[in-house]
């Protein structure tokens, strides 16, 4: 393998894009698993009920709020 290929800006850009996509996928998967367990308390229906909808929407926002809060608290503990 030609080692200079590894340093090609085009390839680096591609790898960074894929990295970013992987991070987004991971975060989406995390939100879905956590909020599914919190919000879908009965047998899944043929569509989400309005209370499930609003729970899912609140759940994601509050999870992100909490992440920020934990990050802040954690930094203060250092």
């Amino acid at each position, binding site marked *: 393998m030609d080692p200079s*290929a590894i340093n090609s800006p*085009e390839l680096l850009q591609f790898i960074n894009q894929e990295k970013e996509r992987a991070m*987004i996928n991971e975060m*989406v998967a995390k939100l*879905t698993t956590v909020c599914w367990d919190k919000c*879908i308390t009965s*047998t899944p*229906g*043929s569509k989400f009920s309005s209370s499930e909808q609003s729970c*899912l929407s609140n759940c994601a926002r509050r999870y992100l709020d909490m992440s920020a809060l934990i990050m802040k608290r954690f930094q203060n503990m250092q």
Partner: protein
Amino acid sequence: MDSFSSPSSGSSSQFNSDVFKDQLKNQLAQAYAEEFLETLRAKCFDKCVTKPGSSLSGSESSCISRCMDRYVEATDKYNDFIVLS
């Protein structure tokens, strides 16, 4: 990881960036699909097969397909939410 080796076209060890990209994308997509399937199995078994019987009942089967649809729907929603925020 031997599928990242050079394509069969050349005898040299020429690095082909397009082939590398395709292979990387395919492997990532496959890993993602496997993980997602495993999540679907865990979540829908949990919701739909509450008391395993001697076979999957009709209502369990239909619960499983609704569960899969809703889980995919929630994933798509959160994907939009993260990408657009």
